[in-house]
Structures are given as C-alpha cells and as structure tokens.
C-alpha cells in the first residue's frame, strides 16, 4: 500500500505537530512513537498517564430489541444478560472455532432503552461489519460509526487527569461505561483499555477529537504515546494482539481465553452453543486442546520475537512465538507462544531458536506485569 492510499485519523495533524514517527498500520498512517521514544512512553503509561490515538479501530452500534440475542449467534459470550453500563470482551468465531476478530461490547443506556456499542480491530472492521450485516442484519440495525474518534487515556493517574475535566468519570469501575460531557463535548467513556493499567477509552465525535486531545495533553499527568508503547504495554499485560496471538486458526481454548466464555454459553448452559464452531469449542472445553497459548520469560537478555521456533532440550519442535519483545517494565525478554499442551506448564523450561542459537526461556504465568484495574 503506498503512502497516498493510507487513511488518516482526525488527530493526524496533531501527531505531526508533536513530532511523531508515522508508520502504516492496518491501512492507516499512525504514530509509532513521539520524540521521547517507545521506552519513555511505556514508562509514562506505567507511572502516570499516556494518551493514545486509537481512532483507527472500528466503532459500531447494534440497535433493536433482538440485538443481544442476535449478537450471541456470532460470539460465545453472554450478551443477553449484560447489564446496561457494563462492558464485556468477546470474539467472533468461525465454523472451526477459530477467532475472526476480538471485540469489546458495551450495553449502553439510550432514550429508547439500550443499544450495544462494539469496538473491533482496525484491520478487521470492514470484514466484521459485513459479517454482522450478513448474519444478523435482518435481526437488528448494524450501524458503523465512522464519524467517531477513539482516544485511550491509560495509566495510574488517568483517573486523576480525566477527573479534572469531569469529576463524574471517577465513579466508573473497570469494564463499565457511560456518557459524559468532557470539555464541553458529549463522549461515551468506558473504564477499560489495552495496557493493563487503570484508564479510559473515550469515544468522541471526530470533529471534536483534536480539541479534546489537546485538552487531555495539557493536563500535567498526561503525555502522548504511540502504537509502539501500546504493543509493549499490552504484551506485558498478557493481552492478545489479533492477527498475531490469535487468528482464524486459533480457538479460544487454545488461546487460553476460556474465561471470556460464560457458563450460560457452554455445553449444559441455558443458552449453550448457537454460534459458529460451538461444537469444536465445547469439545475442547471438555477434553482440552492440543496446543495452548502461554507466556514465556527469557533467561538471557536476547529478545525473542514473533516467528521464533520453540524446541525442547533435544531440539524437538514444541511450537512457535506469536509476540515477543524485551519488556521495558519487567526488564527481561517476554513472549507469547503456542506450545504443545504437555509442555505448556508453569516453570517448564524450553528453548527459542534465534539466529541459530538456542535461548533458554521459562513458561510463565501472565500477565507479566500485574494488572492494576480500578474495580471500585
């Protein structure tokens, strides 16, 4: 894709003004980092608050009395019982039980009752909207929201910072959301994110996004951060990146995401199955999967990256790395990998093959850096 074909978010001019290094990502020209660099931005988020432009992500709403039940026909998640104001993580599955995309679902209060506000990955959004319209478009109204930007304010001081613009946001707890007037603009705010820290995601009209971003950046706790830091932060938090750690060939069981499949949707539950690949996923829930996503910590300094082969002490292949870096906060190499289930045990020692060398790594519980969500 040439540079002229790349899309721009409403904050594009602001990114350039702030000196960002721009890269192509999911069809958008996005900031990978600002002049301070990825490590400084990562630490800013862990120590204070960082502002990310995630306007490339897909925002949409599902409207209609049957919307929740309809969405349940595409995801193995309890949407019907999701209370107004609550947010839940989920994924679209295919008939093999593989993951087509992962998403965040919030049931919002509306004058008519409620709607479902959904956020999906940038690279998948066109396919997701087509998938929704094709399969449930006759049961509810699928409304893409291309005129909205999305800002993520993340870090232990995010709540202090955002409260300066509207103290009411402090009442939100992790995985809840509501509408707030922020700096004179009506926004939909959830207390969630992709860094492992407390923080907010703010859906704002595109035309007001730059002004809001400037107001947030003017707060003493806040500095901008790019996609580079977003990636190292989410990896330390043990959160999957779609297209890397999960994809259409990995099931939620293999991906160790079974916590996101509520009992009511599992075999024997009141609304069991009824989504693509339910038979495969229920089967794996009962008997386990052959491979499993695990965390790995390097016992040497050498970073181990996506694609590295994992072998045992005899050089036999056990799996491969799907994400990896030298983690700024934990200050050692960390990675996610799919391993044969009998090797996917805590403290099990394996080797990553990097440039012909075998680098020792240890299977580790995730997150690598503790989550610090605000649960009230």
């Amino acid at each position, binding site marked *: 894709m040439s540079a002229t074909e790349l899309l721009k978010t409403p904050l594009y001019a602001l990114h350039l003004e702030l000196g960002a*290094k721009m890269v192509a990502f999911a069809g958008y020209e996005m900031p*990978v*980092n600002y002049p301070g*660099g*990825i*490590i400084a931005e*990562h630490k800013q988020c862990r120590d204070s608050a960082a502002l990310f432009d995630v306007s490339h992500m897909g925002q949409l709403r599902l409207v209609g009395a049957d919307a929740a039940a309809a969405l349940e026909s595409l995801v193995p998640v309890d949407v019907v019982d999701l209370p107004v104001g609550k947010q839940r993580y989920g994924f679209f599955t295919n008939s093999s039980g593989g993951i087509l995309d992962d998403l965040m679902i919030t049931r919002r209060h509306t004058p008519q009752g409620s709607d479902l506000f959904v956020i999906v990955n940038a690279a998948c959004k066109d396919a997701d909207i087509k998938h929704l319209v094709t399969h449930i478009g006759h049961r509810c109204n699928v409304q893409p929201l291309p005129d909205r930007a999305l800002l993520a304010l993340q870090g232990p001081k995010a709540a202090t910072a955002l409260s300066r613009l509207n103290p009411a946001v402090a009442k939100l707890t992790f995985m809840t959301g509501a509408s707030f007037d922020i700096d004179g603009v009506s926004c939909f705010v959830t207390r969630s994110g992709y860094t492992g820290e407390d923080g907010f995601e703010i859906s704002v009209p595109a035309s007001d996004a730059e002004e809001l971003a400037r107001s947030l950046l003017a707060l003493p706790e806040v500095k901008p951060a790019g996609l*580079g830091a977003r*990636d*190292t932060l989410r990896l330390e938090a043990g959160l999957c990146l779609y297209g890397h750690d999960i994809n259409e060939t990995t099931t939620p069981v293999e991906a160790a995401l079974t916590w996101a499949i509520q009992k009511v949707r599992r075999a024997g539950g009141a609304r069991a199955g009824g989504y693509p690949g339910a038979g495969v996923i229920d089967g794996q829930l009962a008997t386990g999967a052959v491979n499993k996503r695990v965390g790995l910590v390097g016992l040497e*300094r*050498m*970073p181990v*990256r996506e694609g590295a082969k994992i072998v045992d002490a005899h050089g036999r292949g056990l799996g491969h790395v799907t994400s990896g*870096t*030298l983690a*700024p906060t934990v200050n050692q190499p960390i990675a996610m990998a799919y391993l044969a289930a009998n090797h996917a045990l805590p403290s099990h020692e394996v080797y990553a093959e990097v*440039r012909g060398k075998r680098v020792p790594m240890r299977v580790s519980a995730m997150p690598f850096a503790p989550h610090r969500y605000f649960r009230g």
Partner: protein
Amino acid sequence: MTTMYTPDHEWINIEDHEAATVGITLHAQDALGDVVFVDLPEVGRSFKKGEVAGVVESVKAAADIYMPVTGEIVEVNEALRADPSLANSDPLGNGWFFKVHVTDMAEFDQLMDGPAYDVLVKNS
C-alpha cells in the same frame, strides 16, 4: 577522510587500520528507536565484506550489522553490550560496536564519504 559510510547506515573509522572502529549512524539509531540488545561477534573471527557480523535490536525490531569491509574482529565494545542504549545516546562515539583489522584498504575506498552519505540519508 578517515570515516566512511555504508548503504546499511554503518560508519567505519580507519584511523588505525589494524583496529578500525565500526558503529551505526545517527540516522540508523533514529530509525531503530530505543536499542535494547546487541549481539556482537566473537573476537578473532573473520568476516568478508557484507557478511552479517552482529545484530542490533530495538524494542520493535532486530536489524543485522553487516561487515563494512573484509577483516578480523579484534575488539568488541563490552560497554555497549552492558548498556545498549549507548547506541542511541552516542552512536558515533561510546556506542561503537567492534573494531576490525582491515586487510584490503581498497574496500574502504569504495565506501561513501560523509557528504555522499548525507545525500543518501536525505533521499531515503
């Protein structure tokens, strides 16, 4: 000129041809971002011009370090191994990678001088 440059954004200073110093350029460290790891060659090992002699890794990516000229590694920068961020903070000085005993001076003369390298960076 005692310092020359390669199209791979490395510099080599040949003040002492028995121990010519090799590092990455300001442009290279800027493109890489925060350097977190370097894989340096073994002292005593010989490489031909263009062979991969080491690796420099930033948070985001790994990049090969190519031999700018044929020769034998006579010293590596242990300070850089201990603190890879020297490649960002002082790439032309304390952030050097290794020293090489140059055997074919003609190869050195084929590299870019400072002004030629500046043109390459400007057009990249």
